[in-house]
């Protein structure tokens, strides 16, 4: 087990290298950073001086080396907009995004499992057809539009909930609902089919034929086994959930990484954008690692 975890952690290292490579070259592709940092009337001498100061006159690979070293020390450069180290700016906004994403993950896990299991149990009944169709509708709607429609209904027409910004728990309801609708719409059919697949297994037939009550068969034999793929399913939702929260934040003016990203993209504040990408990727990698470890822990068939 320890060896397995160690191996999985080692596998992360090349992935981190590739991500840093992507992030570094994306920004180099965006053109000369000197142009965005200096006013248009700057003389060529000023530009050359700036290039030397930023290390832009060095060979590309050497620049990448310097970049890697900086990133390893948590330095992405000073934000043009905030005048602060980019890492600090990102860390300041990170909790808001994590709050939104983690609450939504919990809500959509519960919704997804409960509704998915009920749909599988009540296969082909009105309940199953209703929620299976609703989950297709949920997957077909862009998350930002769900947000807009919620604002229209609960904010503008019914005036039950505040439409934007941070504040009390009421401000969280609509962003969390938006993300949970999108995520549980993906999870419900997966849980449903995983549950149905297990209901076809031989050990379920055995449990039934030895006269166990249907409830016991479902919850003790089927549900526990159906949970195993659910862990993977939920881990697979994490990148989408974080991506979705970036968009949801801009709709609800939620002060997290998504809003920061959009502002910094518009303000050409590249080092903050770089820091955002690296941090968000790190979160996703850690979430996937956690899922793999939990998976190995709960599935007795997997022995390393």
């Amino acid at each position, binding site marked *: 087990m320890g060896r397995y975890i160690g191996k999985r952690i080692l*596998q992360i290292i090349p992935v981190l290298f590739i991500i840093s490579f992507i992030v570094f070259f994306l920004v180099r592709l965006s053109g000369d950073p000197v142009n965005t940092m200096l006013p248009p009337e700057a003389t060529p001498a000023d530009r050359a001086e700036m290039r030397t100061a930023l290390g832009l006159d060095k060979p590309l690979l050497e620049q990448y080396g310097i970049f890697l070293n900086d990133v390893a020390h948590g330095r992405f450069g000073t934000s043009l907009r905030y005048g602060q180290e980019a890492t600090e700016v990102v860390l300041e906004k990170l909790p808001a995004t994590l709050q939104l994403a983690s609450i939504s993950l919990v809500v959509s896990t519960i919704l997804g499992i409960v509704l998915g299991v009920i749909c599988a149990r009540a296969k082909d009944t009105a309940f199953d057809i209703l929620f299976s169709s609703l989950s297709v509708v949920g997957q*077909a*709607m862009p998350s930002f539009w769900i947000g807009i429609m919620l604002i229209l209904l609960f904010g503008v027409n019914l005036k039950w909930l505040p439409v934007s910004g941070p504040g009390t728990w009421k401000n969280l309801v609509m962003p969390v609902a938006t993300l949970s609708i999108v995520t549980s719409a993906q999870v419900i059919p997966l849980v449903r*089919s995983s549950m149905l697949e297990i209901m076809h297994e031989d050990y379920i037939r055995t449990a039934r034929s030895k006269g166990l009550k249907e409830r016991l068969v479902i919850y003790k034999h089927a549900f526990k086994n159906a949970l195993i793929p659910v862990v993977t399913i939920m881990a697979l939702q994490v990148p989408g959930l974080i991506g979705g929260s970036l968009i949801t934040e801009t709709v609800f003016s939620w002060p997290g990484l998504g809003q920061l990203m959009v502002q910094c993209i518009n303000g050409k504040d590249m080092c903050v954008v770089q820091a955002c*990408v690296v941090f968000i990727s790190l979160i*996703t990698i850690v979430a996937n690692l956690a899922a793999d470890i939990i998976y190995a822990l709960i599935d007795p068939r997997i022995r390393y």
Partner: protein
Amino acid sequence: MENKEKKGILHWMRLLFGSPVGAVGFITLLLVILASLFAGQLSPYDLAKQNLLDKLMPPAWCEDGTMAHLLGTDSLGRDVLTRCLYGARISLVVGVCSVAVAGAIGTVLGLLSGYYGGWVDSLIMRIADAFHAIPRILLAMVVLFVMGPSVFTLIMVIGVTNWVTYARMIRSEVLTIKEKEYIKASRTIGAADWEIILRHVLPNVAAQFIVVSTISVASSIIIEATMSFLGLGIQPPTVSWGVMLADGRNYLATNWWVCTFPGVAITVTVMGIMFLGNWLRDVLDPRNQGIR
């Protein structure tokens, strides 16, 4: 031969219309495609023509609405229905082309990875992990910002952020059939690598490929709308559903219709494609027969 082909189409049509999901999906998608192709004939209005006298008119069934503008008008007095019809063009083009890009990249990398194994496999799979770790929307945002928004960039970005699914699918298929007797047999009789790939590997993944592609078109359409909504994708005056939503958001408190109908258009289109995809999966993959 021709007869056989006809029977084939008839057979598929019977299968399609025998399933409510398949039929609904197919008809919806067909209607969207026809509406986008004949937008110019269906609507009496010029796409770009502004009419400030008629701005922000509500849909026909509301008070003050007129039959002239069934779904109302936007802030510049343009007909919402007309713009929804034209918006389908961009969505469908971007959706289909980006999936072609993703499929091409993913197929090549997946084949290389599975067929040759070793360090090639390790390298490609680690790159796939890295792409998987960065949320698609985030990567698309950054690339579009760096390269500047254009339809071509949008297609490339949405495609490039989606190749991993294809690469993993093809790779795992290659790995399963690589050891099969008939592959060994073809190799023994001197078949070239490309011949084996073309004749044995690709036909085996075709069904799965079609299903994944259909579902991918749906998700690509959503990403296109999201990017255009954020102002990073399609740029006005080109019309796309995302652009309409970005504009309509400013009138949310007073004029609900401007940002409702483009969203409905996206949802209906994506749903049609997903229904079709689900139907294809059920029909093409015999393993799903019992589970459905």
